[in-house]
């Protein structure tokens, strides 16, 4: 019983929940390359307002910053915190790849081996995949990030027509 719970609530998750990284909205929401989105899990009402700032340098588009305000359960809060650790500073393309890997893990119903190289603290969510009702929680922040990033890429691509 407790073992089952422990598989879900890994120490890493509870740590991120108590001390979330990169929390609190930062930066100028109207700056070039910045997009803010608001996502909701209609099932339970968990919400996240998330801001992504992309910047291009040397022909590579990077996730310059991600910040957020959120209310929700331990899983959604910790997952958003871990997500920011994983994507901030990475080239967008690479970060999208990490998102894919995390998504595959979550949708695997517990049958996917997590890759620590790629997911770092994110491997703690392997147990969540066995709780279908919680998968949405773990994905809330990631989905918001992906949405904001895609939107920013569209605007950035339009703004950067001349290169």
């Amino acid at each position, binding site marked *: 019983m407790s073992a089952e719970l422990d598989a879900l609530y890994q120490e890493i998750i509870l740590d991120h929940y108590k001390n979330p990284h990169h929390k609190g909205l930062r930066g100028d929401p109207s700056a070039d390359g910045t997009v803010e989105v608001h996502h*909701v899990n*209609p*099932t*339970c*009402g968990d*919400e996240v307002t998330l801001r992504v700032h992309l910047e291009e340098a040397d022909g590579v588009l990077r996730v310059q910053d991600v910040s957020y305000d959120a209310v929700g359960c331990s899983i959604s809060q910790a997952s958003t915190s871990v997500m920011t650790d994983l994507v901030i500073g990475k080239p967008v393309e690479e970060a999208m790849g990490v998102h894919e890997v995390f998504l595959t893990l979550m949708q695997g119903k517990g049958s996917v081996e997590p890759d620590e190289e790629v997911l770092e603290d994110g491997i703690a969510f392997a147990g969540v995949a066995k*709780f*279908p*009702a*919680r998968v949405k929680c773990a994905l809330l922040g990631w989905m918001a990030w992906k949405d904001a990033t895609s939107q920013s890429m569209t605007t950035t691509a339009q703004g950067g027509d001349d290169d």
Partner: protein
Amino acid sequence: MEGLLPDLEVVRKDFPILGRTTADGLPLVYLDSANTSQKPQVVIDAMVDHLERHNANVARAMHLLGAEATEAFEGGRDKVAAFIGAPERDEVIFTKNASEALNLVAQTLGLEGAHRVGPGDVVVTTEMEHHSNIVPWQMLTQRTGAELRWFTFDEAGQLDLSQVDELITERTKVVTFTWVSNMLGTVNPVAELTRRAHEVGAIVVVDASQAAPQLPIDLAAMPVEERPDVVVFTGHKVVGPTGIGVLWGRRSLLEELPPFLGGGEMIETVTMERSTYAGLPHKFEAGTPPIVEAVGLGAAVDYLAGLGMEAVHAHEQAITAYALEGLGTVPGLRVLGPLDATQRGGAISFELAGVHPHDVAQVLDVRGIAVRAGHHCARPAHAKFGVQSSTRMSSYVYTTPGEIDALVEALHYTRDYFKVG
């Protein structure tokens, strides 16, 4: 007889009600499947198992039963999506029946969106529709000031396609028609009508209430210009329970339509001042959905898929051909609809000279034979033939040639009883 389901006797054993007899101990000959189909044991068992072991509300419950119920319910959606080859499973919306599905489309088209129907616009239907595909469009056109027009059909029960150019014009916003007529049995040319409607930018709404039980449907395999924008059918005619209907709609159209019913499940966030709405399919599923019904419907379409819809279709055609032949031996009997079994569905409406349909049905009922008498919710189509009502026999996967023989014999007896001829 060629074309019959190979294991017909086994199939019949799947349907417990077929073991019933009348008060006089006569076997039951159920020839009213176009009205509603009987249910195989697997459908009943799936519903019982759900109610006895997995019942909970869906989506919003995160406990063990809630997760099981949600999986069962959404599993029903997956099965239905597979059954009709839906391009996307989230394009499958559960309604309460086919009628609600048609009203959902007709009513929301009157409210907003790129396809909004307004004054001067034309909605085209046909004279052979079920009331459920006439009245919603009358309401829409009356409320919006649009015009309702319709295809007529000929003595042989075929739509008069020479009206296409006149009816499907730049003013036409919606073209709606039944795939298979529940009264005449006519199979309409979905691909051709859809292509023509799409050429003028009209959306196409197809009532597949009689088609889904009988024909293999593979939406994803249709060329997109020939694929309707909306296809609806009803659970209880495909060996599933009452209380559930299906609306499949092209995602882009469904996203453009405003919500229909407001309430729990269909929202994203709610404040007292305003609300935002959920994505597909939940946007159109306000309140607690038909959960045990989706479980039953999932089992039902799986059952039909197990028989194979090609085989089901062949069976219907074989029985229909045999029935048309048998009915032809009854003096004074006139079939209302196409006479070639390969060109029609399995509902056969007919008149028997000198005996009113109610009286026909009554005599048959006393002999254990269940047919329908009345207008079959298709008054305009009856008016076309100058009659108010007719008798209709309709077969399904469990119908045997012997049952058709019993029908034909009973019709002869009916004429004797009423001393006609």
